[in-house]
Structure formats: structure tokens, C-alpha cells
């Protein structure tokens, strides 16, 4: 795969934020949950992103907040990727009634606004980080399912798969060794696109108070609190958490754009 500029920038952004989350203990100058200054201090040398309405350091909250979103996105995307891919493989390869039913269910879920479904699911499961991840995962399963199923339908009649069948290899082996490797490139694109979307959905659920409980730092939730201080002009409570959400989503979106572009170029060769 040729690296293109979007891929490089996207990866760099994601890497920086992941490192920030991992090394939060060393990077954050203050505790994210305890007051370290006066209330609503604007950015200054001691608090480079200012302080919130409870005197907590916004920069420290932004650094620690990366943990929440990254954990949720990671769990959600891996969970939906594995389940969606397996269902898509089986459904596309075996076809028949199972395929018809699964496709119908997946198409219906796919048509429904994913954010609203995620909201309904997290309300039902109860608001916490893990449930939010599960709720997001469920809404993305159809994306993987549809993509994988479509590819399997076109691959399964290729001669090399034909040959594997003729050799009498078990179905699981054919799917794992012959079909799955063909899907990797598309999976990477969908994976990064979904991650971008998952960042936004996590932030939205947090914005509605459906993930962390205070005082845990979280970008979406901090942004929600910040909105109460617009008229006081406390822009730092909005710009920094809001900017980080957009930046991380942008990183994943650029990655997916870059990967899909190099994919198209390769196809064209």
C-alpha cells in the first residue's frame, strides 16, 4: 500500500492523541477532577487552557478525557467489526434463508438513524462507558455486514475459492484463509471511517449524559457543561474539548480517505 499524505496526517493525529491518553499521568500538570485554580480563569501560563467553573484545569481534563473516548471507540469498533464480518461472511457464503433474514434485518437497522438507535440502546442498557460502547457497536454491525457480504458474493465464485472447495477444505478454513484476506483493504477503510463516526457518536452520547458520570473527564460531557458559560464568554470551556472531538474524528476520516485513495490507485494500475 502506498502511503499518501492524508494517511500520514491522519495516522499522526491519531497517534498523538493515543499517546496523550496513554501518558496522561505524565502530561497533565494537574488532577483532572480536583480544583487547581480559581473558577473560570482564562488561559494563562499556569493553566494553558484555562480553568472550568469548578476551578479544574481544562488542559488536564482534555488530556485525561482522551482515555474515555479512545476506550469506547476501540471497544465499539472491534466488537462491531468482528460480529459484522463473521455474520457477513457466513451469510454471503452460505446464502439461503439465513442470508435473506439476516440481510433484511441488517438493512432495516442500517436505514434507521444510528445516533437515535445508539441513544435508545444506551438508555435501555443503562448509562456507563461499557454500555455506550456496546450500543455504538450494535449500530455499526450492519455496515460491516453489508460490505463483507457483498464482497463475499463476488469472491466466492472465483476459481481459487472453487479450487479450495474442490480440495474438500472445510468451510471455516475457506472463509478464514481464502476469502477473509481478500477483504482486508476494504475492512481497513470501513474500520477507520467507522472510528471517525464512533468518536462523534461517543461524544454525542456523552453530550446527552449517557456515558461517564461526573467528575470523570470526557470531551463530550465537558462540552455540554461548557455550553452553560457561553454568555460569560468562557470560550476555552468550549473550544478545547469541542476541538479535540473534531480533531480525532478528522484524523480517522483522513486515514480512511487516504487508504481508500491508495486502494483506488492500486486498482487502476
Amino acid at each position, binding site marked *: 500500500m502506498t502511503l499518501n499524505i492524508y494517511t500520514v496526517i491522519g495516522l499522526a493525529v491519531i497517534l498523538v492523541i493515543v499517546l496523550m491518553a496513554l501518558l496522561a499521568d505524565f502530561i497533565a500538570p494537574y488532577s483532572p477532577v480536583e480544583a487547581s485554580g480559581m473558577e473560570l480563569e482564562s488561559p494563562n501560563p499556569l493553566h494553558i487552557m484555562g480553568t472550568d467553573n469548578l476551578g479544574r484545569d481544562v488542559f488536564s481534563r482534555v488530556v485525561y478525557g482522551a482515555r474515555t473516548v479512545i476506550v469506547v471507540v476501540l471497544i465499539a469498533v472491534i466488537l462491531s467489526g468482528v460480529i459484522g464480518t463473521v455474520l457477513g461472511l457466513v451469510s454471503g457464503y452460505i446464502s439461503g434463508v439465513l442470508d435473506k433474514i439476516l440481510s433484511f434485518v441488517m438493512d*432495516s*437497522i442500517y436505514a434507521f438513524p444510528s445516533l437515535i438507535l445508539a441513544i435508545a440502546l444506551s438508555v435501555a442498557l443503562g448509562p456507563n462507558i461499557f454500555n455506550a460502547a456496546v450500543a455504538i457497536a450494535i449500530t455499526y454491525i450492519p455496515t460491516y455486514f453489508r460490505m463483507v457480504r457483498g464482497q463475499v458474493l463476488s469472491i466466492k465464485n472465483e476459481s481459487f475459492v472453487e479450487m479450495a472447495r474442490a480440495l474438500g477444505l472445510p468451510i471455516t478454513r475457506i472463509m478464514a484463509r481464502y476469502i477473509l484476506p481478500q477483504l482486508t483493504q476494504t475492512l481497513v477503510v470501513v474500520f477507520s471511517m467507522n472510528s471517525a*463516526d464512533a468518536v462523534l457518536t461517543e*461524544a454525542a452520547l456523552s453530550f446527552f449524559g449517557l456515558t461517564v458520570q461526573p467528575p470523570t473527564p470526557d470531551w463530550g460531557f465537558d462540552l455540554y457543561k461548557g455550553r452553560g458559560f*457561553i454568555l460569560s464568554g468562557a*470560550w476555552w470551556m468550549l*473550544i478545547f474539548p469541542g476541538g479535540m472531538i473534531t480533531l480525532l474524528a478528522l484524523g480517522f*476520516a483522513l486515514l480512511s480517505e487516504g487508504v481508500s485513495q491508495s486502494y483506488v490507485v492500486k486498482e487502476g494500475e
Partner: protein
Amino acid sequence: MGLARYIAFRALLIIPTILLLYTLVFIVLRVLPGNPVLAALGTKNIPEEQLKALMRELGLDKPLYQQYFEYLINFLRGDMGYSMIIRGRPIANDIADKFPATLELAIWAMVMSFALGVGFGYVAGKSRGTALKHIARLYGSITYIIFIPALGLFLQLLFGRWLGVLPTGGRLSPGIYINSITGLYTIDSLLQGDFNTFADAIKHIILPSLTLGLVLSGPFTRLTLSNMERVLGSKIVVAYRARGVREEVIARHVFKHALIPIVTYLGLQFALLLGGAVLTETTFNWPGLGTYLVDKIMYRDYTAIQAVVILFAFLVGVISLMTDVAYALIDPRVRY
């Protein structure tokens, strides 16, 4: 197949989809949580008798399958049950109150996103260099990553707090009243010839619709650009050029050809629009269904949450049907 038969056929196909979504929502909201009444009250210290009475009042004491069918039938009749928190308040009344606000936001957001997206795609498609096309293509694939509350709050800060030219939320300024006809204030005020109210309503809707419109505009840019490139490469353009038609005029003709697939795409944006509306409304205190839904979430008012979510499922089904029909009207080949 005639058009009428085609429409009837599509309508029949939509029913299982809506039923499935209804079932899904029902399972998620009714079967998964423990006792919704306890969750809504937020306490377990309630006398057994009182709990039972409340469950009976809300119809939650019946077997699940019975609830499932009764709810569906009542819903189709326009009866969406009662709120668990504000006792005795029919949810259908609340929804009827809130729906026009969401509809108005959705319409203006679509107008914004269409104008911004198609406009940019048109300019980029017409340009001779490749730089603008690259930017337009990137724009087309990344606008969806804008986090609506982040953009919306930034715009509030900029235009509301710093420049002080636009309001930061709501539908009308305090002290301004309107007799509701359609519930769409920008239309109602015009119908009554009240231009002050009209100006006020427009001022209030600019930022929310711009926020939502911008986020949804990307695909329009991408589609316009790629369709214009496709048509520009076709023989009809060669023929135009051979006859010495001016480039300006050619661009206009090409644009018209390129527009058809874009119009049909409007329907597909609808699911995104609904999800985005929930975020936009809460960001701008816009009193529509989205704000209502989030309010009810805060209070764990399950019956109201269920009604709104199921209503969304119906809307998605109906819009998808309308898109199919529009497509069949524009392109007769689809019907056969």
C-alpha cells in the same frame, strides 16, 4: 408495471421494515430494562400497591406480547400512551406540539446543505485547475466529521456572544408571539404578513440550520462534482463546443444534467438529518422532537422515549418510500 402499481408494491415492502424497526425498539426499550417505572421514579422505596397501580395505569402490567400489539394498534391510531413523569399527559399532544419545530429545522437545514454543497461542487466542477477539485473532494468526504454541538456552540460564541448579531437559541425572541397555523414560524409569519416576526424567526433559524446544513453538505459537493465531470466528458459537450457555445452556457447545461441524481440523494440524507437534528436542537435549545427526546432521557420517561423513537422509525420508512416514488417519477426505467 404502472406507476400506481409500483407505488403500491413499494409501500407493501416498507411495512415489514417498519414492523421490524418497531419490534427492535420495543425489545430494546421494553424487554431489556428491569422495571421501567422504578427506573423512572429513580427509587425502589415505593409501596407495592402504588407501584402496581402505576403499572396498571400505564398498561405495563399486561403480558409483553399483548403490550406489543396494543401499542402498535394504538400508535397507528395516533394514541402514543401517557408520559410516565407528567401523569395523565398524552404523549401524542407533546409530539404534535414539537414536530413542526423539527420539520422547520429540517427543511431549512436541507436548503442550506443543498445550497452550500451543490454550490461548492458546481464552482469546483466548472473550474479548470485541479486544486479546487481536490479541495472539494476532500470537503465532500470530511464534512460529516464535524461534531454538531462543537460547531454550533462555536457559532453561538462567535455570532451571539462576540459579534452579538444573532441569537444563541430558541425559535423566537422573548416577547414575540405568533399565531400558529402550520407551526412553521417562518411560514406562519409570512402568511400573516408580520414581517417583524418573520425577521426574528429567520434570525433564530440561521445558526441551527447552517450548523446542520454544513455537516450534511459534503455528499452533495462530491456528487455534484463527480456528476459534472461525467457530463463534461460526454459527447454532448463536445457538440456544444464544436458549435462555439460559450463555456458559461455549457456549464449551466451540464449542471442541469448533473442535478438529477443529486435530487434523488436528498431522501437518503434523511436518516442522517434526523440524527443530526437531535444534536442540533439540543445545542440551540430548539424546542423540537430532539430536545423533547433528550429531556425525556434525563427523566427516564420510557413511554415518551419509546413513542419518539418509534415515530422516527415510521418517518424513515415513509421517507424511503417517497424517495423510491420520486425516483420512479424522474426515471421511468426504475418501474420495470
